[in-house]
């Protein structure tokens, strides 16, 4: 109990420090911080669903783009808070429909479907914009500063990690562990497997949609190729995998160094960026398949056992 309170206080202190940081940084620094926090939120939200279920989703950018596009379309007709709400509701609705249709798919079929889903939505939006509205891009003029975007993303990231923490202590968290260990047993102990997966997928996708919506004003100019860029899905995935998708802080820990690395790579090696991304992805999957945090824990346990044996 006291440990929980202590942890909570530390978390609040840390959050306050993070919120204060933009005042000490220039525009470039705030931009970095913003992008990093966005990926911490994305990777943590991705891991809420994909960590325990081991369903590798490449639909991240589908929801991210839905969020961004909702803002692009509605920012001049609705107040900002209402736009965010509408975006979240659309994300939730799409997640429920997609989840009901696809969570039966196992393994690689799910991966391919989610990748296809993101492309499909991008094509649909492009088609609609070209043929119905007669434009390809849209401008977002919202009086929102980079600091304000950062603070919103920070709140979403903190909220996502808090949700992850609450889930891990709840019956839902146990259900997820049981499903991860053995779905047959899970069903036979009375767990509604499809319901649990759908709930997680919906929560995760709604948060991802919100992140897209919050980040949209950052671009000023939005078009499908920008906000539905599949690299966003891949980055999110390898960040979460690097840190460990099954650890509360894993995705955040993976997101921070990888975000900085990608920033540096895209500035210095713009032409080889995708190749390096692919190689890194392969390296992570082979070297730390369960993430760095789990790897450290395993190493620690091995050391301790050796210590006990000696």
């Amino acid at each position, binding site marked *: 109990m006291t440990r929980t309170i202590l942890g909570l206080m530390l978390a609040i202190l840390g959050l306050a420090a993070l919120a204060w940081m933009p005042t000490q940084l220039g525009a470039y620094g705030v931009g970095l911080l913003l992008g990093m926090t966005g990926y911490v939120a994305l990777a943590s939200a991705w891991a809420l669903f994909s960590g325990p279920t081991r369903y590798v989703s490449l639909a991240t950018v589908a929801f991210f783009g839905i969020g961004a596009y909702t803002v692009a379309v509605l920012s001049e007709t609705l107040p900002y808070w209402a736009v965010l709400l509408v975006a979240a509701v659309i994300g939730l609705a799409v997640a429920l429909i997609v989840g009901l249709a696809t969570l039966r798919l196992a393994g690689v079929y799910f991966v391919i479907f989610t990748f296809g889903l993101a492309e499909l939505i991008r094509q649909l939006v492009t088609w609609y914009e070209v043929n119905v509205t007669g434009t390809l891009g849209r401008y977002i003029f919202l009086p929102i500063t980079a600091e304000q975007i950062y603070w919103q993303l920070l709140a979403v990231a903190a909220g996502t990690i808090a949700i992850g923490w609450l889930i891990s202590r709840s019956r839902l968290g146990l259900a997820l*562990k*049981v499903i991860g260990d*053995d779905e047959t047993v899970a069903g*036979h102990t009375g767990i509604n497997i499809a319901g649990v997966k759908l709930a997680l997928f919906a929560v995760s996708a709604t948060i991802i949609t919100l992140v897209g919506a919050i980040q949209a004003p950052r671009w000023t100019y939005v078009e499908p190729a920008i906000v539905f860029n599949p690299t966003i899905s891949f980055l999110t995935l390898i960040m979460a995998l690097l840190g460990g998708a099954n650890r509360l802080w894993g995705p955040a820990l993976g997101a921070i160094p990888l975000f900085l690395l990608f920033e540096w790579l895209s500035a210095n090696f713009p032409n080889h960026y995708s190749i390096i991304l692919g190689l890194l992805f392969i390296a992570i999957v082979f070297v730390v398949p369960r993430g760095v945090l789990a790897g450290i824990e395993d190493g620690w346990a091995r050391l301790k056992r050796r210590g006990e044996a000696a």
Partner: protein
Amino acid sequence: MTSLLDIQNLRKQFGGLTAVNDVSFSIAEGETVALLGPNGSGKTTVLNMISGALAPTSGVIALSGEHIAGLAPNRIAHKGVARTFQLVRILPSLSVAENVIAALAFRPNHLWGRAAEERAEELLAEVGLGGRGGEHANDLTYIDQKRMELARALAAEPRLLLLDEWLSGLNPTELRTGIDLITALGQRGMTVLLVEHIMEAVRALCSRTVVMNVGTKIADGPTADVLADPAVISAYLGEGHA
């Protein structure tokens, strides 16, 4: 006596193979019944269809008159069916206590928190694993994993308990304890359907026995009579081809 489980014309087809062929039998409330048969005769497949692990190709499965054939396992579990598996299925990343809480937390009148921990400890003590809830399920010996699996099945407070060769692999002392444990369950009024190859256990536990051979029911009656039936003996000795 009213019947708790009613199976009529149950069939399961795997492609061209008919694993269960037109099997019918009932189990009365409180009865402990054995389901016997040579390897591959379809016993596990019958249990799988009752628990919902497999959907029947056709036929009726009724629990207290309510049709359950083809329902998802979690729905059937909530109607009061629990089981153990022929090849023990543990939750390897969880502790022994959590393996049992997994059932306590998702039954209809679920337990959580302290209440669940206490009940798990009681159930573990009942199967001979008292005080070992904190261990890793993965570190248990095969026999202890089987005990834990039984505790998990009992945690659901089932009306019907399905045991698939739960006693196999036990040494003579463990077998004695295992038989006593199931006897005690029967005395508490639990209805049990058990698949077993150990005749000593079947004789000790089951007043009634159903025998299958190549997917078909070939005998059903008082255990002593069934085990003396020439058709059953020849099926077991593999002389049934004549």
